Structure formats: C-alpha cells, structure tokens
C-alpha cells in the first residue's frame, strides 16, 4: 500500500477546523491503548485524566493557573513561527523574565509599595525580551541559526537561576533550602476571584491573545508577519524588512515569555527557587501548533494542554500511573496535530499494491 498526496486547489476550510479536533480524538484513542498496555481500565483512566479535574472549583482554578503561562508563551511563539523565526528557547526567556522581575522583591525585601508589582512585571518582560534579543542579534548580525542558539540559552538560564538561588540570593533564614526570601504581599500577583488561587496571569494571557489576534487580523504589522513568513522575497518587494521582523517577533515572544515567568513566580510560587517551570516553554510549542498558530485557537489549546498537566497529577494520585504519562500525551498530541494538518493542504489517497498510479488528468 502506498500513500499519495494530491494538492488541493484551495485550503480546505472544513479540515482547518476539523484537524485539531481529529488530532485530539486520535490522541485519546492512543491514550486508551497506552493505558490498557499499562494494565489499567482505559475508560476509567481517561476519565480520571481528563474529566475528573474539571469537576471541582479549585481544580478549575488550577487549570487557569497552568494555562496562563502556556497561552502567554504560545501567543508570542505564534508570531515567531508565522514569520519563520524558530524561537524554541521560550523556557529560557521565561526563566530570565522570572529572575529580572524578582530583582526588586529579593533585593529590597522591606519595600512595601503598590508600585512594586507593576515594576516587577515590566522588568520581567524586559528581562525575557533582552534574553530573546541574544538569538535575534546573533541571527541578524552573524547569520547564526536561532533554533540552536535559543535552545542553548535555555540551559544557561536554568544554570544561572540555580546559581542565584543556591548562592547570592538564598534566604539566609531559609534552613539552607535553595530558595529566596518569600515575596512581600505587595509583590504577589492578586487572585482574580475569592473562590480560588487563579491569579491575574490568566487575564494577561487572554488580553495578550486578543491583542495579538487583532494585530494579525487587522493591522499592517500582522500582514507583514504573514508575508515575510511565507516568502521573504515577496516581503522585500513590499518593502518589509526580514531583519526587523526577526527583532520584532523575537522581542515580542521574549517579553511575553518573561511576563509569564514573573507572573508564575509572583502569583503561584511566591519566591524564586531552582526549578520554577514544568517545561512550560516547550509545552507552549505544542500549544501554538494545536491552536493552528491563531491566538484565539491558542487560548483553547492552552486549556487543553493545561488539562494534561492536571490530569497527570490527578491520575498519579487516583489510579497510580506515573505523571510522565502527561509528557507522552503532549508529544503524541503534537504528532497528530502535525499529521492532521496535512489534510488541510492535501487530499490523501491510499493506493493498494498492484493498482496503477493515478491517471493524469487534464
């Protein structure tokens, strides 16, 4: 049996909507198979993985907490990916944003002022943007591959955070735990509702997604992003600069990742510690693709991926499967999303052995 692709005359509108859903369905089927291989009842396991965490108020709050950084980062990445700039170092920009944003509360632990929180958020964004500026500078100035440099910078940022929290920034009264002093209340991102822990990061994420959606849909800048992404040459004829686009997309995604980093530290953790993220920067890549690089789609995709984190924790407690299953789910999902996207541009034809290849048509 052979598989042949035939280019569709136009992009299929039906499959543009259907393909992420199809990918989700296939992931669930494979998930069920995986669970039965692990010796669990697949229906039971899928239920506790994907449904149970949606039934209670507190877990909905947790969902918003986990979705916020994913959406924030993925929205920035969507602009990068659409313009053909492959920033995959969001995890590092997230970390650097968290560090830069924490300078004020860690260095001035006695500073009680309503000004501190806005300053922290701005510094977090600057920190993330500057860190994303490194691969942008290297790409525009030295022609260096941004995939490799941005990824290498992730390891460096994580080691830097490790050094800070074990060394100069460690709380001297912290019983030798590698963490900074807890932030003062003024430096903690407030909760949205009284009913649970979800904090303002989720609002930031929604606002960012809508703003970037507006830019991509209605502003010249958005058009510039798509044109340069599809053909740099065509963009040059229109007077757009690919070099400036590298800077724009990298700084934007770095700033959003930095905002996600400081929001996570300030709102969810309350101090700096060596590990502040369960891989949000990498999972956000999946979110961006599952949302079909559309900021509104990314909101939905962020909630789905947040659910895999929650479900992983829940399933570990209730039916005793490893929380690593969540990572497998995330990887599978990205694979299915990418394969289903083929359906948008191509018709797929199965050709069985012995059959003649498709006849030429006029």
């Amino acid at each position, binding site marked *: 049996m052979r598989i042949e692709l035939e280019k569709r005359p136009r992009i299929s509108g039906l499959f543009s909507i259907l393909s992420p859903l199809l990918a989700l369905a296939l992931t669930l089927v494979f998930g069920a198979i995986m669970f039965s291989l692990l010796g669990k009842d697949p229906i039971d396991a899928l239920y506790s993985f994907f449904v149970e965490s949606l039934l209670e108020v507190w877990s909905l709050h947790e969902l918003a907490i986990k979705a916020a950084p994913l959406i924030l980062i993925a929205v920035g990445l969507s602009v990068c990916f659409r313009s053909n700039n492959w920033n995959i170092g969001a995890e590092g920009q997230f970390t650097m944003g968290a560090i830069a944003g924490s300078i004020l509360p860690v260095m001035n632990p006695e500073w009680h002022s309503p000004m501190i929180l806005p300053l922290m958020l701005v510094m977090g964004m600057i920190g993330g943007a500057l860190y994303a500026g490194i691969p942008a500078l290297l790409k525009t100035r030295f022609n260096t*591959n941004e995939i490799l440099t941005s990824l290498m910078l992730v390891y460096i940022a994580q080691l830097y955070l490790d050094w800070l929290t074990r060394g100069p920034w460690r709380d001297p009264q912290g019983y030798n735990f590698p963490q900074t002093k807890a932030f003062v209340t003024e430096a903690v991102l407030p909760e949205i509702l009284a009913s649970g822990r979800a904090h303002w990061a989720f609002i930031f994420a929604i606002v960012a997604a809508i703003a970037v959606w507006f830019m991509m849909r209605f502003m010249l800048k958005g058009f510039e992003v798509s044109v340069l992404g599809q053909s740099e040459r065509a963009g040059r004829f229109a007077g757009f600069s690919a070099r400036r686009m590298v800077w724009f997309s990298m700084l934007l995604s770095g700033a959003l990742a930095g905002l996600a980093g400081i929001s996570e530290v300030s709102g969810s953790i309350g101090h700096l510690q060596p590990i502040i993220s369960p891989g949000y920067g990498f999972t956000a*890549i999946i979110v961006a693709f599952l949302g079909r690089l559309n900021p509104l789609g990314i909101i939905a995709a962020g909630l789905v991926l947040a659910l895999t984190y929650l479900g992983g924790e829940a399933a570990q407690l209730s039916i005793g499967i490893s929380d690593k299953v969540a990572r497998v789910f995330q990887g599978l999902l990205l694979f299915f999303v990418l394969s289903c996207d083929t359906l948008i541009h191509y018709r797929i034809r199965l050709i069985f052995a012995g059959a003649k290849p498709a006849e030429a048509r006029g």
Partner: protein
Amino acid sequence: MFEAILLTVITASTPLVVAALGELVAERSGVLNLGVEGMMIMGAVFAFAATRYTGSPYIGILAGIAGGALFSLLFGFLTLTLVANQVATGLALTILGLGLSGQIGESFVGQPGIKLQPIVIPLLSEIPFLGKVLFSQDLIFYLSIALIIGIHWFLFRSRAGLKLRAIGDNHGSAHALGIHVIRMRYLAVMFGGACAGLAGAQLSLVYTPQWVENMSAGRGWIALALVVFASWRPWRVLAGGYLFGTVTIGQLHAQAFGIGVPTQLLSALPYAATIVVLIIISHNRRTTLINTPASLGKPFVPDR
C-alpha cells in the same frame, strides 16, 4: 594522569561524534531532523533495557540502534510521506522521546547497569601511550572511527552517495533524473536515527552505565550544532566532537579541583561554547550558503 584525562575525553566525545555523523547524512539528503535528542534518549533507554534483560551489552547496542531507527521512522513518515513541517516534527520527536523514555525507564531508575567492556586489540595496544588510549577502547569508539571513514567514502566516492548529495542539493532535478527521492531520504533518516540510537547506547552503557531520566542533557542539540560546525563534512565532525568533549571534561575536572568558580558557570561552558562556535562558523554568509545542502528542510511532493 594525562592519559586518564584523554580517555575520558574520548568517552565524552564519542556520542557527540556518532550522533552528528548520522544527522550529517540525513541533512546531506536534504532532511533537517531536529529530533536527535529524542532519538538519542530512546536509544539510551532501549539499550539499557535490553542489556538488563539479556545481560549482554552487545545486544543492548543493537537494541539502541534499532530503537533510534524505529523512532526516526515516525519522523520520516510525517515529514516525507505527509510532508509535515520538518522543524516542528523534529521538535515533536524530541518532546515525545523525552516523555516516552521517562515512562519506559521509570522502573530502571537507580538500578545498576552493565558497563560495556573495552576490547583490547593485541599488539597495537602495546604501543606506548597511544596504544593504551586508542586501541583499548570499547566497540562504540571503534565504530565511530569506522563510521567517519565509511561515510566519507560513501558520500564522496560512491555512486549512491552522489545520488544522496544530488537529492540534498536539488530534489526536483534528482527526481527528474529518476532517483527515488523519498526512498533515499527514508534510508538517510533511518541511518540518522540508528546513529543517534547508537550514541544513546553509548551514554547508558559506557559514559554512565545506568538509566537517568533526560540523561542526554542536550547532547542531541550539540550534535546538531556540530553538523553546522563541520560544514557537512565527516572528518570535521571528528574535530568538532573532540573539541566539545574536551570542554565538557575540562569543566568537570575544574569542578573537581574546586578552582573557585561556581560549578554552574562551568556546567554552562559546553552550551556557551556551542553558541560561540556557531557564531564563528556562520558569520560568513557566503561560505555557509555554499556548504549548506540547498534543499535542506524543504518539503518535496513528487509531481506525476
């Protein structure tokens, strides 16, 4: 002392060289597979598992190679048959590989492994100094050298290698000449996967003979950088690989001596070195353009 350091440098460099060589062949055929890290870690866990169940690290090596090659087929199916975006699919392969290997290897954490023993080559190993360093190594080191010679011969001296390079430089023309573009690319991708798997086997059987989650620690990505560094030429992979191996071992020894620099700074050195090397290699736009396979990363759908 010097001899001991040299031996550890070889151990640290071999996985980088092997993985980079596999990726080099894939990229020469025009396929950019960013999933090296994922294939490597799958090779590592397969090799460890097979060694544990059979007691033979040689079966472990075979399992590692098979694991990497099978896993790369997933990438091949998506990018070659379904023409999915190669960058995104490579990332997916890495994410899935790290997750899946963690899941498979969960019960192996903390279990003792079996170390692959060196093969001492008679006579040659008795040469003072060099003999001990070069001729009493494990099988994977010998394989790494054989691979360089073999790949160099294949790419630049054989007919099939010429076809492979033709596909990498212009798949449209190659297809018009009757070369099976997709079939050769599948083979190149699987070869890359097999090499990454072999490199992973080296990690869990020689470098640190045990299973640790995420034990590849970015080596797959460094291997990708090495291919650029080597400007797609096999012998330069050797030089690059040993440069990185030396930096890695150098910083480990510096940590052991406690030279008053934070250990984190030293651990960051191999990653920083990768960036510096990439800058040096890429800054001349024209030479980069000449060396890079022209079809690298571009999708190909045969017209009929």
